C-alpha cells in the first residue's frame, strides 16, 4: 500500500507542483491550504509524512508540527518542513519543534523526492 502524504501549503501553484511530483512517485496525496486544515487532515487520514509549509494562515507550520509531535497518537508522523525563509534560526526552530527534516524553497525536486523517501525508510 502506498505511503500517504499530506501537502500543506497556502501557495496554490506550489501545491500543484508538489502534488504532481508526489503522485508521480506513487504516493497517496492529500492537500491542505492552511494550518488548521492540515491538522484536521492529519487526524483524519493519518499520513505517513507531511510536507509542511511554515508560513501559513490560521496556524503556522511550527504550531502544526508542535501539536503533532505532542500528540502521542500522531507523533510517528514524519514531518518535512518547507520554508521560504532561509534563516538559520528558522531551521533551528523547526528542528526544535520536532520536525524530521527541513528544506528551503526553492528546492530541487530530486532532492525533495530523495529526502521524502529517506524519511519514509524507502531505499533510494
Amino acid at each position: 500500500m502506498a505511503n500517504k502524504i499530506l501537502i500543506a501549503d497556502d501557495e496554490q501553484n506550489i501545491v500543484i507542483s508538489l502534488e504532481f511530483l508526489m503522485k508521480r512517485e506513487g504516493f497517496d496525496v492529500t492537500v491542505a491550504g492552511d494550518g488548521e486544515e492540515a491538522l484536521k487532515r492529519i487526524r483524519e487520514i493519518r499520513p505517513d509524512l507531511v510536507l509542511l509549509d511554515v508560513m501559513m494562515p490560521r496556524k503556522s507550520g511550527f504550531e502544526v508540527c508542535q501539536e503533532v509531535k505532542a500528540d502521542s497518537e500522531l507523533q510517528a508522523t514524519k514531518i518535512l518542513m518547507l520554508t521560504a525563509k532561509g534563516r538559520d534560526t528558522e531551521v533551528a526552530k523547526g528542528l526544535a519543534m520536532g520536525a524530521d527534516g527541513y528544506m528551503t524553497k526553492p528546492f530541487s525536486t530530486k532532492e525533495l523526492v530523495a529526502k521524502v523517501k529517506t524519511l519514509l525508510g524507502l531505499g533510494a
Partner: protein
Amino acid sequence: MLSGLTVVLVCLAYLGVLFAIAHFGDRRADQGRSIIDNAYVYALSLAVYCTAWTYFGSVGRAASSGISFLPVYLGPTLGMALAWLILLKMVRISKAYRITSIADFIASRYGKSHVLGGLVSVIALIGTVPYIALQLKAVSSGIDLLVPADDALAHVANGGGWFDTTLLIALALATFTILFGTRHLDAAERHEGMVAAIAFESLVKLGGFLAIGIYVTFILYDGVGDIFRRAAADPALSRLFTLAQGSGAYGNWFTLTLLSMFSVFLLPRQFQVAVVENVNEHHIRRAIWVFPAYLLLINLFVIPIALGGLMHFGVGGVDPDTFVLTLPLSHDHQALALLVFIGGLSAATGMVIVETIAVSTMVCNDLVMPLVLRYGGQGLARERDLTGLLLTIRRGAILLILLLGYVYFRVAGEAYALVGIGLISFAAVAQFAPALLGAMYWRGGTHLGAMGGLSAGFLVWGYTLLLPSFAKSGWLDASFLTEGPWGIGWLRPEHLFGMTGLDSLSHALFWSLFANCGAYLVGSALRPPNAAEAGQATMFVDVARRTAGVGTSFWRGTGQVRDLVTLVGRFLGPQRAEDAFLRYARLRGWNNLDEMEADPSVVQFAEIQLAGAIGSASARAMVATTVKEEVIGIDEVMEILDEASQVRAYSHQLEEKSRALEAATAELRAANERMKELDRLKDDFMSSVSHELRTPLTSIRAFSEMLCEDPKIDLEDRKRFLGIIVSETVRLTRLVNQVLDMAKIESGHVEWQNAEVDLREVITQAVDSVSQMLKDRGQDVHVVVPDTVPILWADRDRLVQVVLNLLSNGSKFAPKETGVLDVRMTANEEHVRVDVTDNGPGIAEAEQGLIFEKFRQGGDIRDKPQGTGLGLPISRQIVEHFGGRLWVTSQVGAGATFSFELPVGWRDDAPDGDAQP
C-alpha cells in the same frame, strides 16, 4: 536668715569644687584622656552664654513686658541653625591657622595687622568690662538678699570700704582664671580643665533655675494652669500675655533677635568656648540642637516665676529681678534660696572666667605684645626665654580686667550704665559681624575696609548707646540726650538725623551697622587687596580646600632651622619648641633638626606655633626678624593663586569633559538602540522580501525541473505548467518593481513629477486601464464625479497608481460576474476625497489595520489573491506624501470602501527640489 559666714563659706566651697573639676580636667588632658571630648560637654560649655544677667534678669524682663525676654534666646537658637555653615568654618580656619581670639581672627584675615587686632581688642575690652561688673553686681545683690543686714559679715560684705565679699569673689575668680587659663603657652592651647568647669557650671545654673521654677509653679501654686488662671484675672498681669503693641515693639523684637544671633558667635567668651576650645568639629552637629534645648529648658519657668512673684508681692512691691531669691526667702525656704543663689553664682563666675580668659588673650597678644616687641629694646631681644614674660602679661591682664570690672561695679552701682550693659555689650560685639563674616565669605575685603568698618561702627555705637547710658546714669548732662550736644537737634544720640520710631537699641544698631557695613564696603572698594590680604583671603575663604592638601603659603622666607627653634623657644619654652620642631621634622621625613632644611613650610610652621602664643600679627613680625623674607609681590601671589585656580579650572574642565563623555555615551547608546531597531526592521523586511521572492521561484523551479526531466508529461499538463511558470514570472517581476518602488519612496529618492492635477482625469485614466480586466471578469464599475473640483498640485502618475491599486484590489475581492465597483469623488474647499467601494466579502475589523502593513494580504485563504502585499502600503505612502490620508471602512459581508482624501492647496515645499520638474 542665713548667716553671712554660711553664705561666704558656701560660695568659697562652690569655687573649691570648680577648682577640683578644672584640676581633674587638666590632669586628664595631660594624660591624653580628655573629658571634654564630648559633644554634650561642648554644648554645655556654649551655655556660658546664659549669664547672671539672664539668670536674674529674664524674670525681671518677663515681669515688666511679658515674653519680650525671649529674643535673647531665640537669636542663639536661630544662630545655631546656621552653625554648620558659620561656626564650622570659623573652627576650621582657627584650627588651621592657630587662631586664639576673635581679634586674632580678624587681624589675621586682613593682612595680619597689629592695628586691626588692637582695635578689636579695645572694642572687646570696652564692651566687656561693664559686663563683668554686672556679674559681680548680681553676686553682690544676691548676697545682700541672703544675708541679714545686721550680720557681722554683712558689714564687711557690703558696708564698709572697698574690701567686701564681691572683691573676695573677684579675686578668687582671678586666681582660678590664672591657674587654669594660663597654665602654659602652646600653639594648640586649650583649657580643658576650664571648659570642664564651665560645663559643670552650666548644669548647676540649669539645676538652680529649674529648682526655683518647680518650687514656684508646683509648691507655691498648683501648676502652670493655676498661675495663668490667677494672673489672667488680674488686668495688670494679663497684659503680659500679649506682645507689646505698636510697630516699635516688633522692631525691638527683631533687633534683639539679630543681636543675640550675632552674640552667640561673636562675644569673646562665645568665640572662646565655641571656636578656640572646640576639640572636634563634629561636636558642632550635636550642639546645634542640644544648646537650643538647654536654652528652652532654662526658660521654661521664667513666666510662671515672674507671674508668681508679681502675684505674691504685688506689682512694684519687690524688684522682679530678685524674685528667684525673694520668693523662697519670703516663705522661709533658705536652703532653696541658697541653692538658687549658687545657680546664679555659677552663671556669673562662668561668664567672668571665660570672658576674662578670652579678653586677656586679646589684650596680651594684640595690644601688649606688639608694643613690647616694638619698644622692648635690646634687653628683650637678647632674652632667650620669653615665656615667663608672656605668662606674666597674661596673668596681669586677667587680674587687671577683673579689677577693672570690680571698680566699674563699685563706681556705677545702680546706675543705668551698669543695668543696661548686657545689650549694650551685645551691640558692641555685633560690630565685629561685617568684618568677620566678610573675612570668611568675601575675598574683596581689605585691611582698610575692616579698619574703617570697625572704627565707624564702634564710634557710632559709643555715641548712640554708651554715651546715652552715661547720660542716663547722670554722669553726663541729660540735655545731651534731649537737646543734642551743643543743642544741635539732629545730633541727639538716640534720634540721630531726626530718626524716631525706633527704641534706642534698634536705633543704635541700625546706625552703627549701617556705618560699619558702609565703611567696610567702601573702604574695601577703594583699592584692590594687596598681596598679604589676597593671600589671607584665599586661605580663609577656601579654608576647606586649603587645609585639605599641602598648604599654599603666600609668604616666603628662608633661614636657619636652629634660629627658628630658638625663636619659638623664647615664647613657648626651649624644650617645648624643640619637641614641637622634632615632631614636625619626623612628620616631614627628617630624623633630626639638623638635617631639616628651612624651607618656606618650616618657616610657616614656626609662625603658626608662635601665632598661638603671641597672635598671628606678632608671630609674623617675630619670624621676620630671624629669617630673610623674600618679598612676594602681588604678582607672585596672583601667580600662586592663578596656579591654584588653574588647577581648579582644569579639574572643572575635566569634570565637564567627563560629563560630555557621559552624555555622548548615552547618545551613542540611544543611537545604537535605534540602529538595532532599524536593523531589526530591515531584517524583517529582507526576510519578508526573501519569502515573497522564493515563493514564486519555488513553483517556477519545481515545474521547470519536472518539465525538463520528464518528457512523458502529457500536453495538457505541460501547457498548464508553463502557464503557471509565466504567471509566477509576472508576479516576480511585479514584486521586484514594487519592492524597489517602496524602497525609493521610503528613502525619499522618488522624483515626484508634480504639476497641476485634476483628480477627475486621474480617475478616468485609472478606470480606463482596468476596464478590460473588469469586463473579462464580468464586473461593473460606476463612477460619480462632481462637476467642478479644485485643482491639486501633485504627481499625476502616482495618483493614477493609487486609484489603480484600489480598483484592482476591489476587483480582486469582488465576486466574478456579479462584482460591482463604485468610484465616488467628492470635494469641498479643503479636501478632495475618493471612495472606491466593492461588493466583496468585506474586511474584519481586526484585519483592517494589518492590510496596510507590508506583505500582508487580506482575503480568503483558499482563493489567495494575486498581489504582492505592497500595493496598499505604497498607495498610503503616496497619499501621505501629498499631505492626505488613506483608510478603509468595511463590515464583514458588506463589501469594503477604501477612501483617500487630499488637502487642497498642498504645495511641495521640500527644499531638496524633488518637486519641480
